Each structure stands twice: as C-alpha cells, then as structure tokens.
C-alpha cells in the first residue's frame, strides 16, 4: 500500500479515536488529548501529502461505504500539495491548541470535533467522485461550524458569526451541488474520471454554467469577493487555532476545487472563464487588503488578509487558465506553480499570524489594536512571531511571500508576448492590482505590528500582558520555522509543485521551467532568476559589518554604553500612552485616499445642556469602516428576503382548512396539466 494511502488512513483512524476519546475522558485531560490528537492527524496527513508530492499516487474506490454512490478516493500530486499544507498547519495548530484551550476553556463538542475537522480537510483533496467530495465538504462545513461556535456562551457575537457562516457555506454547497449535478447528469457516472472523459462532449454553454456554479461555490469557501462576507465575521470569533486552520487550510480547498474542476474535469475551457477568475481575484486582492488596512480588530485584519492572498492565488490560477487557452503551456505552468507556491507560503505565514494573534488575545483579552501596544517587552516571543509573519505577509524580502509574488509577477509580465487584445488589457491591470496589494500589505502589517506590539501599552489590559505557555510558543515556533524555510529555500519545494502542476491535467508538453538547486530560482526558457537566500545573506553580512564598524569607532569605544535619554517631547509634559498614534489614526491618510471605495461611516451626537442650547454637555463621535460589499450587496438582499418572508406570511394564517385546500388544489392542477400535456 502506498505511503500516501497509509498516511491518510492513519489520519482518519487517529481522528476517530481522538474524537471518541475526548468524548469520554475527564475535563482535565481534554485539551491535551484533543490537541495532541490533532497534531498526530496533521503529521500523518503531512506524511501522506509529502509522499503524494513525491509521486506516489493511489486510487481507492469504496463502493459500499455510502449508500447509492459509494466513496472513492484518489490522490495525485495536486491533491498532495493541499494535503501536505493542511497537515503541516494542523501540526502547529494542534500543539498550540493544547495550551490555548487549557487556559481559555473549550466545550466537549469543540474539543472532540477538532481532529474530525482536520480529517475532513485532509479528505476533500483526496476525493475522487462527486459524492465523496460533497460528503467530505459537508463534514468539513459542519465540524468547522461547531468549532466557530465554541465560545458562544461567552460572547453573543459568536452566534451571529456562526449564523452567517452556516448560511453562506450552505449556499455555497447549493451552488456546488447544482453545478456538479448538472455535470454528472450529462456524464453518466459521478467519478472524476467519468466526468473528465465526458467533458469534451458537453456544449460550451453547459460547461460555462458548471464552471460558474463551481466558481461560486468554491470561491465562496476561498473568500472570494463578493462572496467573502462570512470570512471577516467568522474568523475573529473562532478560537485562534481554529481560525488558523480555517484561514490557512480550509480556504485553500476552494482553490483546489477551482483548479480541479476547471482544469482537471472541464479540461481548460474558454478564455472568458479565466478572465472572470482573474477579475474576481484582482478585486478580492485589492478589496481584501484595503479592508485589512482600515481594520482595527487584529483578527478581522488577518481574515481580510486571507481574502487578499486568495485573490492573488486566483489571479495566478486565472492567468494559468488564460495562458493555457491561448496555447502558452510554459507560462500557464509558471502561473499555476506561482499560485500553488503562494498557497503553501500563505498557509505558513497565516498560521503564524493567527497563532500569534491568539497569543495576544489570550494574554490581554482584547483584539482591538487601538487598545494594545507595548507587548514586546512582556511577550518577546509572540512579538517576534508576529513580526516575522508580518514581514512574510508583506511580500518583502526576506519574507516568505516574496518569492511566490515574484513568480506570479514574472508569469504575468512574460505573458504579454504574443498575447491577444483581451490578454493585453487584462495583464497590465492584473499587475497593477498585484502591485497595489503589495504596497497596501506593507502599510497594513506595519500598522498591525507597530501599533499592536511596539511603543507603550495603551490600556491596562495591554500593560498586564504575560508571555504565553510553552505549547503555544511551540506551535508558533513550528509555523515560524516553516515560514523561514519557505522564505530562504523555496527551491526545495518547487520540483514537487512542478509535479502537482503536471497533475492539474490540461493537455500540454511536460514542465519546462526549472530550478537550479536551492540557492537560486531560475526560470528555464524565460529570462529571470532570483535568490532569496543570497539576498538575505547579503543583508545580514552588511548589517553585521556596519554594526561592528560602528562599535570599533573610537568615539563609541570611549563612550561605552548608550546614554539612556528621555524621549524628545518638545520639552513639554511627559508623553502618555494616549499621545501615541493609534491604528485608526495610522490608517487615516489611506482611508482618506480610498474613501470612495471604503465609505467610512461617522456619527456625531452632540448633547446640549437643557438650560442653554448654545452650550455643549457631551459629544459622542463614532467612526467605523463597514464592509461596503456587505452593506451594498448583502443588506438589500437580506432585506428583500425578509420583506418577501413577511409578505408571504399571509399564505400561512394557521388554518388547517387552508393548508388542506393548498394540497388539494395543487394536486388537481398537476393532474390537469399532466393530462393536457400528454
């Protein structure tokens, strides 16, 4: 039996055993067993994914496991990428969860369901038939819903977040169901092999409809605009290890679905599909990072950053499809490789960031950046973790996302040769969108790290922070080490990603781009190379040399230690923490620039004295940046649905006679229609 099958089987078994164990063991041991079990599931999944990436595929039909359709699993290098990423994230999140849930408490249901969630995340990429995919998808949705609702007894917002999440994930399921059912109906079998074989015979309109429905369903899971509204609501309210799993492992499965359905099953398709994907991806990227830049809630900021990164990945996937349909397979492979590398990179730094944010929440009790600050002296490890994650997320060297963004930009730039007009218009706009997100990402993470961790604490909660327990630090350390490895030697992962790209399955020549060892990444056939390792080495060498030279200066040697001096405050009174820039004020110039897009809402309430209308007793000022798509798109739909619902109430007055009449008339009408149309 191949290692990947063994790994997945082991993962599933451990998950079930852990779930059962947690349901029976006493309260004291629950966090440890749950977290350790999850970490073991993750390890098994990582091994399975790594084996799949090394080329060990397997197929496993299980016709008797589910009535009517059976289950069927198959793993190829493409699924291997997502399985390995999920496994790695689960290891870090599981170890972290041990410490996190022992201190913040968790319900029995949530602790029990955590390993099952990870198992379902591992199972979705391994699905080889529509029924399996949908069953695992729904398992994933239900388990994650339970996990999001973990703290609903402590905070009322959690219930609302859970409701949004539940509704949106099931609407996505409906779209998926619709699209895949149409496909299956025309294919005569629901295994992926049958679907792929039947695809060439379908009409372009039908394929387009299937693709759009699949895009809607999978895109909603990936946090694609405009179906992203659940993401910034659910991620802050879930416990941090769950947020990490959702943001770094679950949203990837939306991407997996689009790649699998678009390339593998539908076989590429028309250009307009991929232009749509690029457009939605660019919009998600820009909108996501803009909202993140305005956000003052630490975890909401990270949730919007997930939308941004998924948007960038979708730009890569769309570019790949675009180049494939324009018959440039080497560029298509490059774009898809960039997208997959970004999936791995994003998983790494997003896990690190969410775990660090959870550490902050655990230590201070607040997620509000305007109340934090000064955490670096009390929580140096967490500060280091968030700083490293923030550098990674900003796509600056030597951060993690730099190489995948470089690859993506290379693919887009080289695509202009021999392009059609549509491509020639889209590609520069896609590059501008990527560039705008890169700049805004720097601004966002400078804001988050600077106002949250540096300078002085702004409230007593922040001043009372203490470093987190060892298991939480261990989880963050693992994620940080993974980020560092991905940042310095991404070349180690690229051959595996090459195999995954080959398995994505559109007809074309074998991969022609190559890498040159671990130090430099070279694009074969296209002129371009970069070496993050050499860049980092160069920076470190110059910094150390400059510091040594400074220390050797006679004036410094004579002086000795630096003089501790009072902050320069223009000579006036002492600087209080209230005088520091807050996250809101930091983002204010950006908000002004983009206020047409972001539409901040302000409310000013002035209370006058009763006696004299000209004297002011109190002023209350509220400023808020809502999610504009939610306001403009969702609220009208929700209000319309609510209005129809109340209007339709006249149909249900409670009279049994009326309901019996409905039944009678409907049956009669159906019989008449059938008779007439026969």
């Amino acid at each position, binding site marked *: 039996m191949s290692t990947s099958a063994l790994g997945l089987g082991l993962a599933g078994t451990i998950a079930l055993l852990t779930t059962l164990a947690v349901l029976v063991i006493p309260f004291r041991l629950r966090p440890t067993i749950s977290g350790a079990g999850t970490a073991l599931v993750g390890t098994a999944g990582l091994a399975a994914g790594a084996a799949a990436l090394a080329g060990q595929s397997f197929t496993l039909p299980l016709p008797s496991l589910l009535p009517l359709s059976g289950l069927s699993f198959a793993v190829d290098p493409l699924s291997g990428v997502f399985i390995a990423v999920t496994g790695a994230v689960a290891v870090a999140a599981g170890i972290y969860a041990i410490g996190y849930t022992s201190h913040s408490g968790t319900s029995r249901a949530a602790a029990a369901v955590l390993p099952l969630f990870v198992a379902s995340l591992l199972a979705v990429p391994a699905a080889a038939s529509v029924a399996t995919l949908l069953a695992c998808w729904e398992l994933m949705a239900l388990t994650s819903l339970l996990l999001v609702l973990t703290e609903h007894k402590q905070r009322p917002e959690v219930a609302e977040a859970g409701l949004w999440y539940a509704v949106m994930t099931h609407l996505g399921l409906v779209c998926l169901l619709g699209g895949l059912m149409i496909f299956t109906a025309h294919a005569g079998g629901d295994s992926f092999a049958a679907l792929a074989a039947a695809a060439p015979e379908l009409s372009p309109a039908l394929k387009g409809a299937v693709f759009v429905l699949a895009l809607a369903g999978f895109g909603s899971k990936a946090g694609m605009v405009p179906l992203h509204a659940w993401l910034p609501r659910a991620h802050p309210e879930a416990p941090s290890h769950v947020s990490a799993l959702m943001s770094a492992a679950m949203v990837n499965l939306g991407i997996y679905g689009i790649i699998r359905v678009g390339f593998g099953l539908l076989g590429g398709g028309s250009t307009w599909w991929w232009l749509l994907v690029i457009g939605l991806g660019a919009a998600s990227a820009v909108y996501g990072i803009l909202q993140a830049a305005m956000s003052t809630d630490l975890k909401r900021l990270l949730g919007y950053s997930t939308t941004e990164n998924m948007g960038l990945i979708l730009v890569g996937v769309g570019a790949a499809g675009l180049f494939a349909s324009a018959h440039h397979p080497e560029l298509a492979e490059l774009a898809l490789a960039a997208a997959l590398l970004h999936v791995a990179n994003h998983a790494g730094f997003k896990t690190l960031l969410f775990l660090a944010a959870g550490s902050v929440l655990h230590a201070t009790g607040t997620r509000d950046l305007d109340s934090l600050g000064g955490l670096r002296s009390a929580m140096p490890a967490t500060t280091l973790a968030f700083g490293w994650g923030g550098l990674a997320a900003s796509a600056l060297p030597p951060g993690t996302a730099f190489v995948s963004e470089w690859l993506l930009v290379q693919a887009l730039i080289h695509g202009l040769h021999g392009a059609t007009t549509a491509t020639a218009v889209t590609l520069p706009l896609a590059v501008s969108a990527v560039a705008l997100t890169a700049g805004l990402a720097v601004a966002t993470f400078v804001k988050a790290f600077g106002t949250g961790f540096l300078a002085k604490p702004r409230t007593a909660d922040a001043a009372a922070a203490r470093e987190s327990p060892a298991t939480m630090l261990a989880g963050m350390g693992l994620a940080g080490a993974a980020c560092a490895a991905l940042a310095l030697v991404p070349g180690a992962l690229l051959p595996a990603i090459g195999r995954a790209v080959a398995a994505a399955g559109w007809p074309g020549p074998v991969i022609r781009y190559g890498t040159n060892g671990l130090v430099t990444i070279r694009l074969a056939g296209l002129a371009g190379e970069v070496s993050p390792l050499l860049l980092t080495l160069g920076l470190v060498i110059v910094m150390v040399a400059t510091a040594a030279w400074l220390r050797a200066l006679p004036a410094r040697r004579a002086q000795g230690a630096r003089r501790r001096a009072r*902050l320069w405050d223009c000579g006036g009174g002492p600087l209080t923490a209230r005088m520091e820039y807050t996250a809101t004020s930091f983002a204010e110039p950006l908000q002004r620039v983009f206020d047409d897009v972001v539409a901040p809402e302000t409310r000013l309430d002035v209370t006058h004295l009763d006696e004299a209308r000209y004297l002011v007793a109190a002023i209350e000022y509220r400023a808020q940046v809502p999610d504009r798509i939610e306001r403009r798109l969702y609220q009208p739909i929700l209000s319309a649905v609510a209005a129809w619902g109340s209007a339709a109430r006249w149909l249900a007055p409670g009279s049994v006679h009326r309901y019996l009449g409905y039944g009678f008339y409907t049956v009669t009408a159906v019989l008449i229609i059938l008779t007439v149309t026969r």
Partner: protein
Amino acid sequence: MNALGITGGVIQAVVITGGAPLLTGVMRQVRAKLEGRKGPGVGQPWRDLRKQFRKEAVAPEGTSEIFRVAPLALVATTVVTAVVVPFVTSASAVEPMADLFAVVALLAMGTATLALAAIDTGTAFGGMGASREVTILALVEPTLLVSIFALSVPAGSTNLAAIVAATLNDPGRVLSPASMLAAIALTVVTVAETGRIPVDNPATHLELTMVHEAMILEYAGPDLALIELASSMRLCVFLGLLASLFAPWGIAASPTPLALAIGTAAFAAKVVAGGAVLAAAEVFMAKIRLFRVPELLAGSFLLAVAAVASSYFLAGAS
C-alpha cells in the same frame, strides 16, 4: 558572477557609499546658488557625517531593538542594492539579486523598517511620519511595478543586466513612447520615494509638514549619521537606476581599467546631473499638500499604465 560584475560591484559600493554625501552637497549648492546665497560647499555633508559619527549614541526610554536595528537595516538594503544593480558595469556582481522587482522590494523593506522604528519611539511625531510614509509607499508601489512591466517587455526580462544590455543594443528604444512615459513615471516615483519637493520637504522644521524627517526626530549621533548616509545613498541609487534604465551609455562592458574609469565617470556625471536638475526644480516648486500627493501619484500611475499599453500596441505583438 564574473570578473566584470564583481569589479563593478566593488567600485559601486565604494563610489556610492563615499560619493552619496557629495551628491547631497552638490544639490544643496545648486539650491543655494539659485537662491542667491553662497552655500557651504559640496563637502559639507561629509563634514556633517564625520562629526555625527563622533557624537554620543543615545537610547531613548521605551525604545527597543527595532529602533537600534533600523538604521543598520536601512544601510544594508541600500548598500546591497548599490552593489548588485549594474550602474558602472553592464554585468551585475550577483546576477540572481539584480532583478528589478527584487531591488524595488529591498528598498521598500528599508522604508518599512524605518517606519516601524518611528512607531517604536511612541511619540506622536513618529507615528505621524510612519503613517504618511507608508501611505506614500503604498501608492508608489503600483507605479513602480507597472513601470517595471513596461521596461521589461522589450527586454524580455526583469533582470536589470538584461534590460541594460537591451537598451545598449537598441538605443533608439529609449525614445519610444513607452520608454518616455515610463521615464516620467519613474521620475515622479524617485521624487516620492526619496522625499524631495513636491512630495516632502527635506529641510522643513515644521513637524506637521514632515514625512521623512518626522520618522528620524528621535535619532542622534551615529544612528543619525547612518540614516542620513543611507538617505543620500538611496537618492544616488534611484538616480542611478534612472540613468541605467534610460541612458546607459558609458557603461563598462569589459573589465579593463579604461572602460571602468569611463563607466565610473559616466555614472557619476549622470547622477550628479540628475541631482542638479532635481535641486533646480525644487527652487521653482513648493511642497504640495499631503492629501494632494495621492493625486500626483495616481497621475504617475496612469502614465505607467499608458507606457505598458503603448509598449504593446505600438510595438506590435512581438
């Protein structure tokens, strides 16, 4: 990595580190002369730096390692860029690092580190400077990357040595609409990234008008000297990039002493000329309002997009 590249790298490191204060001095002299003054002489920034390195090093209360490391990081990113970009020779010292996208990202990294150090001081001015600086950085990135796009399309690569070689092989390309538009866009970017008028006034004393200065109000002694040196070097690097991308003639193509001397002289002449033009322009302009800067940057972005469009549509699909 070949002999040409390595020689070039060493020469560039020495010339740019040593000569950047001279560039600042020349610019101040040009301004002084145009304003009717005599000015302190082109060597004054060297005297200033020498004195600053001898002064006391200060650790303000409440600042952390980030405050102390930021000047080193700023110098490191600038020095690494100065070494790898082909200014004096047409080959780079370290080929894999001479990618235009990588160089731009390195320079942005230096700015971001300084912004973090400014926030770390915990003063209102530091936060204000950092906030304004990252806003300008965020708005300059799209222009930069789209200009890179426009420049790399004819050369077929974002590798700087390849772009320089392509321009040397086909000098007429510099006069194409794509190139001209990209040049104007990159000039605006240079002004914005190095904090010159009309985006930022480097000589202002009014804190509420500061962008770059506000971030370094707390730095003293050797730290301040490093930051000022790094700022002059950044200006040198940006002007040198403009020269290498749009006017690379005189660049040494072989490691002979004559060619290297000509290359160094040509680089120095172009950078000093560019700096003098910038300084002269500053005499005729005032700093624009902070909230008008995005309009300026949006205009440069449109020029960059026009450059890409024209490089595709006018040159034909090649």
